[in-house]
């Protein structure tokens, strides 16, 4: 510990602290622009100059390490004079166009200029002008306002992992730019808007929409990936206009993925329903709620009476709230059916689970891992901020290896990598398992021949103290997901490490907790569709895009006698197969809870009034339960539903109980597949109903129409070149798609994204495909 004095206040700080760290610890504010606690030190703005005893000139607090006995003055005449001088310099070339600047009211330069600037400028000469850059559909630029703090540059380099911006030219000509004509395409790009201390980088979708002081700020939780990012949702006149991160060191830190930040645009989509709809005599009609609910209750009662409760199935979105899930399960079981599932993109439900599958550790513990194996994950796009944590771990010396069906650039150094066709992944994982067992001197009954790369990964894994294996979305959606789970469990056992699942959706863990999965011998998401039911309750999901096999889902729903859809949005598909569509609130318009991938229960309130006659889903289900005369549906609040869902006691526990990744009774299947296999990713902006309707995100490069991607050898096999048309089919209707070269794919694989209208009719997300030249 070091002792120092700041403005007469004595304090102790950790070895290696800088003066600005120490000041923050003492609650003393030092003005700054380029300093940011999560970024490297650049010390280029000089705003943080302070006086240090015995130093001949002012020193930058952000770059001056504390020494024992140091005396710092942040408000002495010398310090103030230096700070004022720096401010005068910064404003020389600044356009001072605050009245037309979106940053006005939340601008560090504006704030500090009030504190340290003078009321008029001594500078009479010409100011410089910097040409704006096109950074893509999310970030708008006014580069003349830039003060060259390089926070944005350091973010792309250090946090996002790819230097997409740089500071070109020199001295007074220096400007921030991407490489000629490139845009900033990172899935974390929006964070540079928050980081920019001036109005040089602002949010394009929010441009000129409101002034910061006109906005109400309300806390919420992201409904997208398993992270459960904490949000500040900003609302004006009952419209969500912007989303910013709410800092939470356990989860999103001070960042947000672009999906969490910009998906709010989907809340204002023209697809939003405002009134219940019922199909009468083949035509859709807007009706009052009581009429709609009566209709639904009757329909369900009739089906149960006629065909038995087993004829009803519930398909629940894993992005829905815990409360909705719980009430949906209670409703189904009240009717006598156990057919409910929210694991819509999964297809292998074999084996016996001991509890709720989860991350197997706290998210914050990922940073401390020293050896990691990531199994089948499109990590950057599926879990942008978890990828970021691993990136930081790698920088500190952790070794990360991957086993996957597609070679993707994770923007971090990898210790080992196995890329193989989906059907061969169980075998490869078994090889790693066996190699680890051999290295650990354990007996292992897996009969596989260990390859060189598997051995290399095994050697890396055993060389650490704190290893973990993370199963990604593709591992969970894999046709032999249980085999992958069981092998991972075995591998973690040999390693003495942990393992877990990177939760696909905001409430993937919550779905188990709320029993939105079969509790007994009910049908799972896959069997509910292969063994079609007479009636379906579809909650929040768009099964044609959200299920493992969209074709099968559409067929089953089209053939059913009754399909009741609860959703904020209408879609052409639902209008075709449903007979009642009830407008229920998206996350911003209801209270509820999500249980994130680490099992953390996060409850939130509505930030906004529901649109039109939209109602919170839990209230709709409560009324339905009552109309169906089921017991136990008189909840006074969503909190009461949550408390019951979490197993009794009032008050919210921090974490859900019964988290356990152990699986038993799995028939390990290592047999290789054959033919052309599909590798299906769910692109980041096609993953759920809300983000699919967010227009700005849909304009990004991550949202381009999926192509049929193959490696060079596979393309040659079909005699096609990149750019040519190709006919592909996987059991559904053949689709004509553009062929594209993807050097990161194994032989005989066709990478075809799911979750998109152009590929929905093709068939299942995994399995054999037929390909021919169109």
């Amino acid at each position, binding site marked *: 510990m070091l002792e120092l004095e700041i403005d007469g206040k004595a304090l102790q700080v950790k070895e290696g602290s800088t003066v600005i760290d120490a000041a923050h610890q003492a609650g003393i504010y030092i003005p700054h622009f380029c300093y940011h606690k999560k970024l490297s030190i650049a010390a280029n703005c000089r705003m943080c100059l302070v006086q240090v005893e015995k130093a001949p000139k002012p020193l930058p607090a952000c770059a001056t390490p504390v020494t024992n006995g140091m005396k710092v003055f942040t408000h002495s005449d010398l310090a103030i004079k230096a700070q004022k001088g720096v401010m005068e310099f910064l404003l020389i070339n600044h356009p001072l166009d605050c009245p037309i600047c979106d940053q006005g009211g939340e601008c560090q330069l504006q704030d500090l200029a009030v504190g340290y600037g003078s009321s008029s400028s001594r500078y009479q000469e010409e100011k410089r002008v910097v040409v704006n850059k096109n950074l893509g559909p999310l970030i708008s630029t006014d580069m003349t306002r830039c003060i060259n703090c390089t926070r944005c540059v350091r973010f792309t*380099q250090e946090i996002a992992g*790819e*230097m*997409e*911006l*740089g*500071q*070109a*030219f*020199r001295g007074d000509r220096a400007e921030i*730019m*991407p*490489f*000629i004509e*490139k845009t900033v395409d990172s899935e974390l790009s929006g964070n540079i808007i928050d980081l920019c201390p001036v109005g040089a980088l602002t949010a394009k979708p929010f441009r000129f929409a409101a002034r910061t002081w006109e906005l109400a700020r309300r806390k919420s939780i992201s409904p997208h990936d398993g992270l459960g990012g904490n949000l500040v949702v900003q609302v004006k006149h009952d419209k969500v206009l912007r989303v910013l991160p709410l800092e939470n060191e356990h989860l999103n830190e001070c960042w947000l993925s672009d999906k969490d930040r910009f998906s709010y645009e989907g809340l204002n989509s023209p697809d939003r329903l405002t009134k219940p709809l019922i199909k009468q005599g083949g035509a859709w009609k807007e009706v009052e709620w009581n009429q709609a609910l009566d209709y639904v209750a009757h329909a369900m009662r009739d089906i149960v009476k006629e065909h038995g409760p087993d004829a009803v199935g519930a398909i629940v979105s894993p992005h829905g709230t815990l409360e909705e899930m719980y009430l949906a399960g209670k409703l189904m079981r009240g009717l006598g059916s156990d057919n409910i599932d929210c694991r819509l993109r999964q297809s292998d439900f074999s084996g016996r689970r001991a509890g709720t599958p989860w991350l197997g550790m706290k998210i914050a513990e990922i940073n401390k891992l020293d050896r990691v194996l990531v199994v089948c994950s499109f990590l950057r796009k599926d879990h942008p901020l978890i990828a970021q944590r691993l990136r930081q771990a790698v920088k500190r010396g952790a070794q990360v290896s991957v086993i996957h069906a597609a070679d993707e650039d994770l923007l971090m150094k990898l210790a080992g990598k196995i890329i193989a066709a989906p059907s061969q992944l169980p075998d490869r994982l078994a090889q790693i398992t066996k190699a680890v067992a051999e290295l650990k001197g354990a007996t292992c009954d897996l009969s596989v021949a260990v390859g060189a790369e598997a051995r290399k990964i095994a050697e890396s894994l055993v060389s650490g103290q704190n290893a973990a294996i993370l199963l990604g979305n593709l591992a969970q959606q894999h046709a032999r997901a249980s085999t992958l789970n069981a092998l991972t469990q075995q591998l973690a056992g040999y390693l003495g490490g942990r393992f877990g699942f990177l939760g696909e959706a905001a409430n993937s863990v919550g779905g188990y907790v709320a029993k939105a999965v079969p509790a007994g011998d009910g049908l799972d998401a896959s069997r509910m569709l292969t063994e079609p039911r007479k009636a379906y309750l579809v909650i929040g999901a768009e099964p044609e895009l959200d299920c493992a096999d969209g074709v099968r889902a559409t067929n089953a729903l089209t053939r059913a006698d009754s399909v009741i859809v609860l959703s904020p949005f209408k879609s052409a598909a639902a209008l075709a197969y449903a007979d009642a569509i009830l407008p229920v609130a998206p996350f911003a318009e209801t209270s509820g809870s999500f249980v994130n991938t680490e099992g953390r229960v996060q409850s939130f309130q509505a930030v906004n009034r529901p649109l039109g006659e939209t109602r919170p889903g839990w209230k709709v289900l409560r009324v339905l339960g009552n109309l169906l005369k089921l017991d136990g549906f008189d909840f006074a609040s969503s909190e009461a539903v949550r408390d019951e869902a979490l197993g009794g006691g009032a008050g919210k526990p921090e974490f859900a109980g019964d988290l356990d990744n152990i699986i038993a009774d799995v028939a390990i299947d290592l047999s290789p597949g054959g033919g052309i296999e599909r590798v299906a990713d769910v692109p980041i902006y096609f993953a759920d109903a809300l983000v699919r309707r967010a227009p700005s995100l849909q304009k990004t490069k991550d949202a381009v129409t999926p192509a049929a991607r193959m490696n060079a050898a596979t393309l040659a096999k079909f005699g096609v070149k990149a750019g040519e048309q190709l006919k592909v089919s996987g059991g559904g209707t053949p689709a004509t798609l553009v062929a594209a070269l993807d050097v990161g794919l194994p032989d005989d694989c066709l990478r075809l994204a799911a979750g998109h209208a152009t590929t929905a009719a093709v068939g299942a997300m995994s399995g054999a495909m037929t390909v021919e030249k169109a």
Partner: protein
Amino acid sequence: MNGQPNMLSQEARARIDREVAKYPTDQKQSAVMAALRIAQEEQGWLSNAAIESVASHLDMPAIAAFEVASFYNMYDLRPIGKYKLTVCTNLPCALSGGVHAAEYLKRKLGIDLNETTPDGKFTLKEGECMGACGDAPVMLVNNVQMRCFMTPDEIDKLLAECK
């Protein structure tokens, strides 16, 4: 990078690799200045494609190579004439006729700074201190040949030498 073919010749790449070998293996990008120089020598100037080629050869982001190429004024980001004359106009030279030398050249060649004569023969540039302030006015021919005490007579002589 971007699947575009590297535009540098085998020979240039071999020369760059010799520079790379001077640094630790995981710090290839330390050779960026030398690599850009080699690319410029081969191509005559540094196009975006050339900078991208250098960057991809050194496994570094293109923008990071562009930062370097745009920082130093001996890298040419636009095509130049056969002879590039860089006149030092920094303060010590300016006090000893550096600015006059630049003015004289402008008049003689009929072009402004950062311009090239229509016949493509001369490009005029302004340079930073060349470490020879005592010999002012000084200028550099094609980045390599240093000329001192450049009075109008000497300049005329230099121009005559440039065929």
